[in-house]
């Protein structure tokens, strides 16, 4: 499989990233490089090899489903560019 200029344009559009027309061939090439890496990995014979996800012999920790730290609205909003009445304020996105 290979990514052409049109596919690169489409991917950029779907990701809502503006890519100038003359930058598309380079972008397509970079996508193809990534696919090339995946091809290389597909060539590896992994028959009989046990998957390894971690070297640390532990299960993911769980905790009780309770509120541990609350009542911090002021702190949470401290870095917001715009906050009103205890909420983040953002530009209107839906008419």
């Amino acid at each position, binding site marked *: 499989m290979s990514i052409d200029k049109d596919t690169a344009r489409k991917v950029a559009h779907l990701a809502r990233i503006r890519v100038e027309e003359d930058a598309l061939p380079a972008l397509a090439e*970079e996508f193809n*490089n990534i696919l090339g890496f995946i091809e290389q990995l597909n060539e*590896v014979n992994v028959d009989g090899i046990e998957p390894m996800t971690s*070297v*640390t012999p532990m299960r993911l*920790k769980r905790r009780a489903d309770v509120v541990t730290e609350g009542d911090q609205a002021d702190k*949470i909003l401290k*870095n917001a560019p715009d906050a009103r009445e205890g909420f983040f304020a953002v530009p209107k996105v839906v008419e």
Partner: protein
Amino acid sequence: MSDLNKLTIAEARDALKKGDVTSVELTQACLTAIDGADALGAFVHKTPEIALERAATADERIKSGDAPAMCGIPVGIKDLFCTKGVASQAASNILEGFKPEYESTVSGKLADAGAVMLGKLNMDEFAMGSSNETSAYGNAVNPWKVDDRNLTPGGSSGGSASAVAADLCLAATGTDTGGSIRQPAALTGTVGIKPTYGRCSRWGIIAFASSLDQAGPMTKTVRDAAIMLEAMSGHDEKDSTSADLAVPNFEAMLTGDIRGKVIGIPREYRVDGMSDEIEALWQTGRKMLEAVGGLLRRLLQPRPPCARADQARLRRGVRARSGCDPDASDPRRGLWSWVHGGCRPGRDVSSGRVHRDREPRRSAGYLGACRARQAGTAARTATHRQTLGRGRSAEYRLCAGTGRGFCFQAGKMVVERRDVSP
């Protein structure tokens, strides 16, 4: 005592304990050095008030006899760590003005141990880079030089490496996803460790690739790395992937005795086009290991290009997923630059960089045959000019052909030191 900023952690700890020096004096020496080294671009947010306040507290603690090893030690913190009330912007304009209301677990542990934060250190933007040239603060510069050119300290923990190498601080924190501690440590002749995943909490560290990121120490000596790593390590409820294992006394393990240990030398680590300089360092490293009784064994590593591909794919994939950006439409900021920043490691890979395997296999023991490998960290020298795309270029040099950090420091090249006075 003169040149207090040039002390190692171990030396400073002992001098503090004996009362030969105070943390305030140590801190002052570092602050003076920092102010004289703006040309390095290492410290990007200076916090002298916080530093002197913590130093005074540390001195009281030392006097009262309640002092852990890191108490009173002046350190730099990579800008990727959230530090309460102090700018933490991952070297990006996207986070300009962000002052966290909380402290990362690792920087908090260091503070609790009495370490003195001198300020925040330069890095590649969001840790995506290997030369500290993608930073919103500008480049960090390697204090080592071979001529009048500015050389890269590596990246992404470039500011940390530069600061430690230039004696602006006794040690610094770094983070490593795919080499961001190890490579800058190698390029500046300092010591850096990427701990096994889970050893240090990731909480409060701005994420790059959550399943690969680890914080680690960047220091002047192996002993210092052991001391500092112990203070940084430990289970944290706030990071469910942090390992719930006891933290050993790493320093006590530094016996220097590796007799009988089997050390694997992957044949594939010698890459095509490697310069004689690197080859000589590599051989020196082998001889040093043999001289102290290490049993060297050649390893044939299956398909290293695939391991490189694996790393590149993983990093890009995770990076792409973490790319949420309020200003993606601006090609100078945001996702566009992330995408392109993200492609550079891929280029490094195809140009034959010594490959860095994933950490888990390393610590689990390669193919069950050995517990340590000799691994060069970078295969470039000052004479290699690498074009990084987008018309930029960087000079890479190798001043430490590192062996396994726990055992020894190998092959530091003798080069002129850059004058960091103003």
